[in-house]
């Protein structure tokens, strides 16, 4: 699905990702953890296609294609979905019109017929229920004035509607109360299939009680410094990051 090799990325001449290697196979769930500022969002954004970053070296293959050569919308239509840590508010764009447009754009890319208004309504209702959102959000402007939790659910709703091959969740759990967290996790679990992969960026082991990852990686100073299974997340919860930092910094000296 996704093969990242020795990826180095800079912003304004400052190297932020310093040689990332990662292999994600179909159906796998990878959790990426790490202290603040370690480069988790940067990594997620580079995969999604944000252009503010300069790729210095390395390669990213997605389904065998050179991902770094693809435009952000091409990536989306090829099945990559990014749930943003801070989704932007877009006044004036009605949520329902937006959802209709993106569903049909993605259907068209997959050679499917556009949905008519009735089909669309039914489809959106079905997914809205899945993520536990209120239908009244459809009438509001996209993300405008949504609470943190509502924004995250709106991201999950979009994910559910677009049925991506690879979903990247950047701190979708941050700031959610337990109920919301449970709903979001259930939504992710329902979308888990043999072919669909997830990269879940999180600070909290808590989420991983609900979504069981196949792998856990620790990102620190722009590199994956430790990988393991879900027990690594529990260890981090217990001991924090200091022991890993010490290990890494000791080697560096």
């Amino acid at each position, binding site marked *: 699905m996704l093969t990242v090799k020795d990826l180095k990325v800079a912003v304004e001449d400052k190297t932020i990702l310093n040689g990332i290697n990662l292999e994600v196979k179909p159906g796998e769930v990878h959790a990426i953890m790490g202290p603040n500022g370690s480069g988790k969002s940067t990594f997620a954004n580079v995969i*999604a*296609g*944000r*252009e503010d970053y300069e790729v210095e070296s390395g390669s990213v293959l997605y389904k065998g294609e050179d991902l770094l050569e693809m*435009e*952000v*919308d091409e*990536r*989306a*239509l090829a099945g990559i979905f*990014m749930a*943003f840590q801070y*989704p*932007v508010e*877009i*006044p*004036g*764009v009605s949520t329902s019109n*937006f959802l209709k*447009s*993106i569903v049909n*754009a*993605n259907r068209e*890319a997959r050679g499917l017929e556009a949905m008519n208004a009735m089909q669309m309504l039914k489809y959106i209702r079905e997914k809205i229920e899945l993520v536990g959102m209120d239908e009244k959000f459809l009438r509001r*402007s996209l993300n405008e004035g949504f609470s943190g939790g509502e924004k995250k659910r709106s991201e999950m709703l*979009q994910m559910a509607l*677009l049925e991506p091959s690879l979903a990247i969740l950047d701190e979708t759990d941050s700031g959610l109360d337990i109920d919301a967290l449970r709903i979001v996790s259930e939504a992710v679990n329902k979308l888990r299939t043999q072919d669909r992969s997830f990269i879940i960026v999180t600070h909290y082991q808590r989420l991983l009680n609900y979504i069981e990852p196949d792998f856990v990686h620790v990102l620190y100073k722009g590199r994956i410094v430790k990988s393991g299974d879900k027990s690594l997340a529990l260890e981090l919860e217990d001991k924090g990051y200091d022991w890993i930092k010490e290990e890494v910094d000791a080697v560096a000296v």
Partner: protein
Amino acid sequence: MSTTVAQDRYAAEKQKFQELFDQTEAANQQSAHPLDEYRQRAMTLAGTLDFPTRRWEEYKYTSVNRILQPDYAIGQAQGMDAADIQAYLPEGMDAHLIVFVNGQLSDSLSQFAELPAGMHVMLLRDAMDSDRFGSIAREHMDRILKDQDDIFVALNAAFSQHSLFLYSEKNVACEKPVYILHLSTNAETPILNSHMNIAVAETGSEFAYIEGQFEKPGATGTYFNNIYNRVTIGANAHIHHYCLQQEGAEGFVINRVDAEQDRDSQFSNYTVDLGGRIVRNNLNTVHKGSNLTTNYYGVYFGKEQQHIDNHTFIDHAVPHCQSNELYKGIVTDSARGVFNGKVMVRKDAQKTNAFQQSSSLVLSNKAEMDSKPQLEIFADDVKCSHGATIGQLDESSVFYLRSRGLNDHQARAMLQHAFIAEVLEYFKHEQVRDFAEMLINQKFEQ
């Protein structure tokens, strides 16, 4: 205001209007009518006034030079049937239709009958002849010409042959709007279309009228629409005035509205301006009584070589009045936009509540926008706010939409549309709002 040089600047152009007027009069077969006397007076008045130059503060960004160069003629009547005008009418809207093609009234497409009791729409000519409206009509014409210093208004009054008189009687609410359509089609010469509306709402009455100014697709002619509206809103009355403009590549427009409001009344102007070669809108309202409300909602969208200039003025002269003004526009390619919003709060106008916001998006390097809020406040107990922003599309929003699979063009169109849609929300008549939205979307897709 004008120097000797400025006076001479457009002497030749003025002469051409005089000649055109003389020709029209010579060809006029109809017997003399009181209106013709006014038209003569107006032409004489025009002869004493000057065309604005860019030295005039109010015309700093808009030169009328291009407008005055063509050799205009008066349009000829053209056959047109109902199917031809369908595209210019809001879908599903039941309106009283008055149609002008190249400035000529289309009798077959216009309906002067079947108005609800208490609502009157007629030619100003006929209003002057009638016992009932004769003196009101004359009074308005007198006031338009008295101390008039705008040469375009004088020319309008001189050339407008089919001026309309719209009148709602006391306490009459007319549900069906009046739709005045100006359609430009190909003609052999550049066409001068001068049209005047005198709209009067008596105490407690309400009506809406829509002016649509369009060029037929495929037409390429040069024309000049010189439009004038005099709007009088009586106590506790409400007039909704819509102005929808989508002019051709060589279409010029000078549009002026002078509104006067009595106490407790409302005047709402809704302007959708999709441009022409040069469009200048002058929208003025004077307050004559307290506790009234003035609403200005405007949208403009300029592409290619278009020049769109909106000059608005609200004269708060009495206490306890409110004004709301929201203008939003987009300019791209080499288009140029001008917004000048003057709000005067006179010394006596205490407790005035005046809100003004003008926002624009400038989407290309060659596009230009000049925005000038102009608040002149002489009263001390008032609430006035104004804001003017000129910006670009928010790139993080573009990225967000693209990250969901919309292409760059779709993402930008969606955001531009959203930017403008905020103003359309205020449009009272849903069908006009939908129609305006459709026109704007068409322009996005071009």
